[in-house]
């Protein structure tokens, strides 16, 4: 049932090199402190570290004890100072990953331990989660950049791109959309220029690179996911490629079974799994009527594989059951129907009352927020509901966050904004004022989803039933109701090899200044590499988008490689925007 790739689909580059690189670097850092040592790891780094170097590797390099750290600077300083008080002398090394910031040193200095510790950087910025998926494991990127305007991670992104281009050759064709995409791209170009000559003359392995800001397409990320992997992520949360649901425990989200269903619409999965179960049973059943020799063969060769498959199968069936139970309880169908109505823009009143009921029932604030944002963006209207006192005052701040990030849009341009704008313009020169006005207008961006949707034909016309088993287009990841905007943009640009003819869309996306193309004239790229496309999602991408592009790749004979700051979903977006009481 898994769709085979076209025979001419290009081979993916070997990303295990990145893992090896990170591991070697870590080992090098560990070996700089010879002898036995304890390792304190920040909680967020635990799972990525586990994928790079397991405990036995750490032990090999004389890591004695491993500790998990919740609050970094406070701990290291209390540790060092406690040792000082007790008169113990030890060596301390703080390893910052992916990079050390000036502020880090400042904190150490303030804690009075700057001189006691040595610092190092572990430039571990790219974690291959899959053969075609690289994650920077920077979930904070989304809030830091899109809400707080903190650009520090952009440099990290540029460094990561630089690493990729040194390892896999230059990218002959570059496209991008979004303010952050442009900045990251320019920074990266600077890096390349500084280290001129290293990548020159290398044959490019990856023909295209496409950078995309998350805020270009919030809608897709806000939708409930119905592709299996996305659904599992929505329900149980996949972290670092491992599922942290109660059911799957920490089982690795890989294996044959999973590869076959991950990109499938959920409605197909159960049927597939039961078919698989039947096959498995049949294979078990072959035992009957075997003679001793055959039996021996069977036990020694096939049984282990079958058992493994059996175990995975039962895991996934369990997951499916659990998902079904959850989804039916809250009337998942109803929810999906409402979402589709919002995307298509009909029955708005019904949808609005559904959302109101959702709020009235106080099912989950995060879900309610998500639906409100979806309503607000798709309808380009203000979905102001008096939610705050009903959920707690901190959500008043959440609202203002959502508005600032452009997840909640306003009908009328905010007065406050224009007031500030005019005030600032008075203070600075005309040119700068122009820039600032741009910045503000992009801040106060209004969503033009409906118009964009029409231009890009995001809502496929359905004649009769959409057969989810045989997808026709990328819309299958949303039950045939909606083609993810982000993926459609990528498709269109790749088709045209530029933004030509998409001016109107770009304008509607408020990205007129931030859509760029950059082609090198050199024609060294092989036709195979030209069908390899690196898509960079700044602010996170969802499994649905990955599935959709994988589908597109199969249709057109491309292979997509995904580089994302983190894998995200609607709940993570909302949580990132929420103010939480400490």
């Amino acid at each position, binding site marked *: 049932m898994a769709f085979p790739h076209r025979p001419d689909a290009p081979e993916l580059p070997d990303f295990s090199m990145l893992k090896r690189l990170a591991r070697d670097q870590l080992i090098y850092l560990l070996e700089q402190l010879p002898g036995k040592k304890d390792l304190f790891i920040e909680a967020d780094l635990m799972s990525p570290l586990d994928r790079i170097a397991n405990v036995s590797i750490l032990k090999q390099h004389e890591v004695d004890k491993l500790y998990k750290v919740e609050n970094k600077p406070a701990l290291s300083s209390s540790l060092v100072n406690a040792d000082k008080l007790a008169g113990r002398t030890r060596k301390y090394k703080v390893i910052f990953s992916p990079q050390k910031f000036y502020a880090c040193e400042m904190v150490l200095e303030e804690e009075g331990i700057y001189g006691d510790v040595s610092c190092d950087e572990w430039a571990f910025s790219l974690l291959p989660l899959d053969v075609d998926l690289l994650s920077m494991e920077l979930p904070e990127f989304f809030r830091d950049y899109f809400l*707080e305007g903190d650009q520090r991670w*952009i440099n990290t992104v540029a460094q990561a791109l630089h690493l990729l281009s040194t390892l896999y050759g230059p990218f002959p064709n570059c496209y991008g959309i979004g303010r952050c995409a442009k900045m990251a791209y320019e920074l990266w170009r600077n890096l390349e*220029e500084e280290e001129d000559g290293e990548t020159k003359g290398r044959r490019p392995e990856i023909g295209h690179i496409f950078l995309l800001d998350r805020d270009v397409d919030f809608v897709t990320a806000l939708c409930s996911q119905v592709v299996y992997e996305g659904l599992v992520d929505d329900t149980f949360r996949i972290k670092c490629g491992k599922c942290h649901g109660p059911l799957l425990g920490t089982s690795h989200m890989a294996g044959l079974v999973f590869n076959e269903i991950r990109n499938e619409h959920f409605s197909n999965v159960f049927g597939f799994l039961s078919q698989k179960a039947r096959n498995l049973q049949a294979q078990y059943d072959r035992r009957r009527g075997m003679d001793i020799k055959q039996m021996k063969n069977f036990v020694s060769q096939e049984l282990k594989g079958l058992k493994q498959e059996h175990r995975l199968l039962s895991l996934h069936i369990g997951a499916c059951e659990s998902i079904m139970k959850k989804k039916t309880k809250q009337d998942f169908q109803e929810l999906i129907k409402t979402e589709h109505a919002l995307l298509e823009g009909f029955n708005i009143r019904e949808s609005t009352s559904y959302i109101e009921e959702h709020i*009235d029932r106080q099912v989950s604030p995060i879900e309610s927020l998500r639906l409100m944002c979806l309503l607000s963006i798709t309808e380009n209207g203000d979905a102001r509901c008096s939610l705050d*006192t009903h959920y707690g005052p901190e959500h008043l701040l959440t609202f203002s966050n959502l508005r600032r990030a452009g997840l909640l849009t306003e009908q009328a341009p905010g007065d406050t904004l224009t007031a500030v704008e005019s005030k600032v313009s008075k*203070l600075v020169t005309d040119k700068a004022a122009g820039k600032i006005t741009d910045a503000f207008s992009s801040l106060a961006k209004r969503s033009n989803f409906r118009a964009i949707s029409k231009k890009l034909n995001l809502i496929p016309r359905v004649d009769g039933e959409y057969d989810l088993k045989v997808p026709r287009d990328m819309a299958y990841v949303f039950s045939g109701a909606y083609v993810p905007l982000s993926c459609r943009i990528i498709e269109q640009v790749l088709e045209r090899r530029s933004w030509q003819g998409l001016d109107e869309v770009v304008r509607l996306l408020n990205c007129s200044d931030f859509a760029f193309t950059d082609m090198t004239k050199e024609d060294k790229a092989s036709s195979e590499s030209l069908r390899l496309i690196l898509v960079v999602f700044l602010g996170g991408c969802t499994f649905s988008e990955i599935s959709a592009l994988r589908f597109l790749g199969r249709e057109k004979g491309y292979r997509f490689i995904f580089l994302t700051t983190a894998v995200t979903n609607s709940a993570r977006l909302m949580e990132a925007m929420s103010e939480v009481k400490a």
Partner: protein
Amino acid sequence: MDCYTANWNPLGDSAFYRKYELYSMDWDLKEELRDCLVAAAPYGGPIALLRNPWRKEKAASVRPVLDIYSASGMPLASLLVSTSDGPWGLGLDRVSSSEDSLRNLSPLQWKSGPVVSLGWSAEEELLCVQEDGAVLVYGLHGDFRRHFSMGNEVLQNRVLDARIFHTEFGSGVAILTGAHRFTLSANVGDLKLRRMPEVPGLQSAPSCWTALCQDRVAHVLLAVGPDLYLLDHAACSAVTPPGLAPGVSSFLQMAVSFTYRHLALFTDTGYIWMGTASLKEKLCEFNCNIRAPPKQMVWCSRPRSKERAVVVAWERRLMVVGDASESIQFVLDEDSYLVPELDGVRIFSRSTHEFLHEVPAASEEIFKIASMAPGALLLEAQKEYEKESQKADEYLREIQELGQLTQAVQQCIEAAGHEHQPDMQKSLLRAASFGKCFLDRFPPNSFVHMCQDLRVLNAVRDYHIGIPLTYSQYKQLTIQVLLDRLVLRRLYPLAIQICEYLRLPEVQGVSRILAHWACYKVQQKDVSDEDVARAINQKLGDTPGVSYSDIAARAYGCGRTELAIKLLEYEPRSGEQVPLLLKMKRSKLALSKAIESGDTDLVFTVLLHLKNELNRGDFFMTLRNQPMALSLYRQFCKHQELETLKDLYNQDDNHQELGSFHIRASYAAEERIEGRVAALQTAADAFYKAKNEFAAKATEDQMRLLRLQRRLEDELGGQFLDLSLHDTVTTLILGGHNKRAEQLARDFRIPDKRLWWLKLTALADLEDWEELEKFSKSKKSPIGYLPFVEICMKQHNKYEAKKYASRVGPEQKVKALLLVGDVAQAADVAIEHRNEAELSLVLSHCTGATDGATADKIQRARAQAQKK
């Protein structure tokens, strides 16, 4: 050619020594050398002369003068001018033309205390040890670098004598104080003073002493009367050289070889002992029968040679002694000075500069009279060939018959390296090249490299450059160090030509030299900033490996801030520009550069710098024009300085953010309820100012809620504070306070629908079915009755659910009936409604045999409907 070996002097049977002239000195000395303090650096280094050293008999009014010359006697100051206006052709011609005017450069006047000793460090810095223990360090061009002191003890007891010596760590200074104690530092670059132990019973100054370096530790060897003492860090031990002839009552001179491996001692009996520096082995001895103390004694030997010889100089006599009964004697016409080198001795006087060394093996083989060595034959063959004589063939055959042609070529190449005269080098190389023609596979490397090396050597040996390096010295020194020394002498064009000639990688070669040149260029105060910046950029362009920020830093160091800023413009890496700009207090420029770079870390660095540098108002104003920096600073304040954040918003009249700020404070910072309410009040005011009525109202509601929750806690007990309104009402209902709950709902105008959902859920949770029923009948439900059915079913109370199912409106009836599991009735209703969607919904709920009849019924109804 016959007389080629005329200046060869045999010492014993196996070795020849030769002395040849390097330069005729052109320095026009007015004084005798003996009237000066002299220091000459090894490896053909510069010569420092301190004229009029402090002599008791001289009048104090005569100031001593320090002169520094190259090995060829050129005043080094002349070199300074030769490149100062940057002739980018060869600057060499200019040297000679402007030479005369340079003679009149005002000499360095010594203004400090009396100098006891001079010496050159390995970096060619001149160390002047003063009587008070202060050591002044000068550059090659007489520019003062720094000074350091050899300690209090030395200051008190004054310096009696001092030596500068070289170790693998750098250059060391050893001092003998007036109290006859030794203090030394093994490396002046990393000054660590070491006071050596006392020599027991030492009453007067030792007759001679030297610093030794063994096993990476510096020692002092001194002679007192007939005794020798070795001082190390810990102890003073008496030592005796093995095999020393009897009758010695005093040692007059001692000499350590260039590599510290050998030691020579000259006694008052005119006897010379030569042995290892460890004093464990004697090599040879010699009795010269001259009792007068020699002026200088130095070792003269070359690496990998078995011959050991010592050169001893008296006023008018020079003697080379070794393991032979006879010595070689030279007459000195003038007052001369010896400089020990790695492979020989340089001897300079007022008029000449000579080199005395053991003739290298290859040269000896080739040029020895009547030599039949293959190299000698090859040289002969080549000469005959040039004469077009058939003898050439004979010689060649002779070599080839012996199978020694390869060896012959190698010999010629090697010998060429040791020749000083280009003519001789050429003829040897020509011979080698000639011989190579008759060899099949002779690797060309050695020949090519020798040609290149000789070309470089001849260039630096030139009179104008004055670095008389021998081949062995050059190899020991390495090309990198040689380039450094050329740069140090400001011979940039020559250095660059050498780099280009040897095709050294740009980063190590040309770029580095250009960077040095630029650093020197910025020191020229008489050229305008624009011109300097332009000149530097023209020359350097985008040469890889050149750091404009380093050059700018140098310019800033010379006090040329504007020039530094201009130079920084050429620096492509912002990360390199910013720190210097900060250092120059151009923080605002630094800020915009940092922002341009897109490196937030850099921006952050500048921000914190600015914050300390500017007053608050200016700082905020600066931020205003830089949105990116502002947002970064806000981030910082959020974590570190909340109060500043408030001020920032206040300044911008950003009431919206101020409101948010106070909201956050209301639950994060304030503990007491009064404080929290006050914070909320401030927030509400701010929101009003921001014209955000919605937020203001919501905030006011929150204030009311807080107060009310407080009252509830006081009156009812339990936990109410910080619950949301919804949870507060729910808690009240769960606690049975229905009246209060309703009051609250009215007060806060909770929409009816929401209240009904809330009550319904709460009562069902309580399983208070009676109250629920009462509630359901209190008035017509604004949310219909389907939710009642749902919630009851959630609590698994089918009985109650059915009650409400009957009350559900017709459009939701089917759903309700299906929820309570009454498929049959649901089917009836759906058929009655003739609603296709409902029918299929019911059908999908028909499972197994039990609902078979119902399913059939629906199918029939459908069929009927279609017929119609």
